[in-house]
């Protein structure tokens, strides 16, 4: 990619996150390697249960991985000392999916936005704190009159803005956005995406944009990683994912999304996958997608494909991709 994005911010090396469940071990994230550069947006796309949210939580130090490393500025986040841990929370922030659950119903908006600043004791002076709250609210298109109101007085889109300004309050370098728009109405979704784009232009933070919505993620991402059952199956520059995708799952995913135009829809060639996503407990040997893949062969069932680079910056985990 271009130079402005070349400095590595966060690096995942073969990260594995497992959960014990009745009946076995749920391999939510099963060996993911990914690099996030300063100031870029990576779209992390997949269906429910593919491990994309777990990966986000692993990056935020909310879940400890069973294997692999998460390196931030070259340092393993699980070997941080106390001060580094605290500093890390200022560098990496999160935006949530549910605009209703993400705000404390008992705190006024101003206090919610200021929570990070209060935790890190950034403003001893009450006036300076108030000023900063105001600045943060203005940044996301809210104003002074909102600071003393409770979350239930706001619409879903506005709550999401509050959540965004809370994440911005610590001036992070990376924001993990976990399905930030999927609970919003369509006319509001675009507002929030535009806001996120504008804030990135102004402040230069990187986004990890976790979503199942392949049409929206194209509008915001520099690179896109497609996940299936705990693995990244394809990662490339955003346009390459749409125009020269190689993995059969990426292709199926793209063709499954309806386009809001009946004429285009009628003439579109479509791949409809049969069956459901298998459970991530007790995964079969070989490629996790083999059971639903229209092109699966002997090799696919026997041996799991590794992610390999087939073009500069374009990696695919498929035996058949060229």
């Amino acid at each position, binding site marked *: 990619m271009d130079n402005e994005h070349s400095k590595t911010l966060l690096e995942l090396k073969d990260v594995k996150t497992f959960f014990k469940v009745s009946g076995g071990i749920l391999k939510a994230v099963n060996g993911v390697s990914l690099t996030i550069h300063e100031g870029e947006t990576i779209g992390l796309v997949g269906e429910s249960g593919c491990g994309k949210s777990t990966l986000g939580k692993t990056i935020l130090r909310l879940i400890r991985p069973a294997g692999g490393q998460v390196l931030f500025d070259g340092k393993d986040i699980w070997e941080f000392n106390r001060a580094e841990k605290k500093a890390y929370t200022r560098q990496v922030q999160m935006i949530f999916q549910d605009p209703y659950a993400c705000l404390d119903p008992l705190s006024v908006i101003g206090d919610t936005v200021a929570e990070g600043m209060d935790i890190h004791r950034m403003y001893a002076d009450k006036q300076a704190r108030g000023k900063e709250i105001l600045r943060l609210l203005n940044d996301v*298109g809210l104003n002074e009159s909102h600071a003393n109101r409770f979350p239930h*007085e706001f*619409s879903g889109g506005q709550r999401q803005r509050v959540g965004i300004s809370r994440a911005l309050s610590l001036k992070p370098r990376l924001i993990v956005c976990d399905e930030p728009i999927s609970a919003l109405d369509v006319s509001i979704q675009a507002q929030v995406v535009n806001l996120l784009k504008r804030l990135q232009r102004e402040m230069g933070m990187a986004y990890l944009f976790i979503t199942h919505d392949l049409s929206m993620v194209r509008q915001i991402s520099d690179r896109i990683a497609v996940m299936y059952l705990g693995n990244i199956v394809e990662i490339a520059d955003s346009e390459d994912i749409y125009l020269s995708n190689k993995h059969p799952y990426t292709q199926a995913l793209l063709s499954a999304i309806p386009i809001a135009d009946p004429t285009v829809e009628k003439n579109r060639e479509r791949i409809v996958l049969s069956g459901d996503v298998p459970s991530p407990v007790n995964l079969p040997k070989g490629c996790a997608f083999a059971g639903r893949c229209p092109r699966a062969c002997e090799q696919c069932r026997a041996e799991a494909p590794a992610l390999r680079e087939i073009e500069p910056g374009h990696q695919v985990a498929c035996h058949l991709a060229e």
Partner: protein
Amino acid sequence: MENAKEKMIFQADDFDRLPPPSQTDAAIARKQTTYWKDVWRTFKKNRTAAVSLAVIFLLILLVVFGPMMNEFDYRTNDYSALNQSPNAVHWFGTDNMGRDIWTRIWEGGRISLLIAVLATLIPEVIGMIIGGVSGYFGGWLDTLIMRFIDVLMGIPSLIYMILLMLVFGSGSIMTLIVAMSLTGWMGSARATRGLVLQIKARDFVTASETLGASPWWIIVKRLIPNTLGIRVVGITMSIPSVIFYEAFLSYIGLGVTPPTPSWGQLIKAAGENFRYYPYQFIIPCVMVGITMLCFNLVGDGLRDALDPKLRG
């Protein structure tokens, strides 16, 4: 539909453009009533609960101002006026040492209610913190605390109370409150833990974590305040049982000692000559009864008002 437009008269400026809408999403959504306002409205609709609440307020007023309403005090004996029936001078009569029962009832009510409130709130706070810690951290700490509570709760609380009273020595209000607090926190800890387990899974708690909040911050600022609303019912409902315990302990001689009156103490003292001077016995009994009933009814009303399923 076709006829609607037949004779539409347009004004000259009808087709003038309005200024474009502002791009920000600043309008406040409907100013909704807050949760508590909503609860209050439902609560008021419940006639019994509302009346009970009024009675409790009246009791509190009387407890505060009642003793000042006549010239007698609660401890001065007056041998010229022993065991008088209620009359114009002594509104509730006098006891076997000639003390004014009206004054003693409200003076005793002060102590009973003070014990009731403190012996409810103190264990509640202790229980909340322990339950909050237990629920938030989980794991072995949670198991340890919960098993400990299970064991303690297996033993009837009266036994602890009697033991503690024997250790601390009975008689003072403080001992009574301490003893009740030491036995009362377990139920509240359990209830709080259960609620904390639900609340800690919500995103705003995760948000605090990602902002670098310490466990203490999360428990005190996020978890406990959000359990309070639901615990209010439990707290209200436990006041009557504390009042009863106080009366009971005083009755068996483990409560406050004379001449300090409490309702339990008054009942005990009057019980001895119940057959001759029944009013001495009945009046404090009625007070205890009314108070317990009202708190219970208020708690009931609160529970209904707080339950979203029962709200219209």
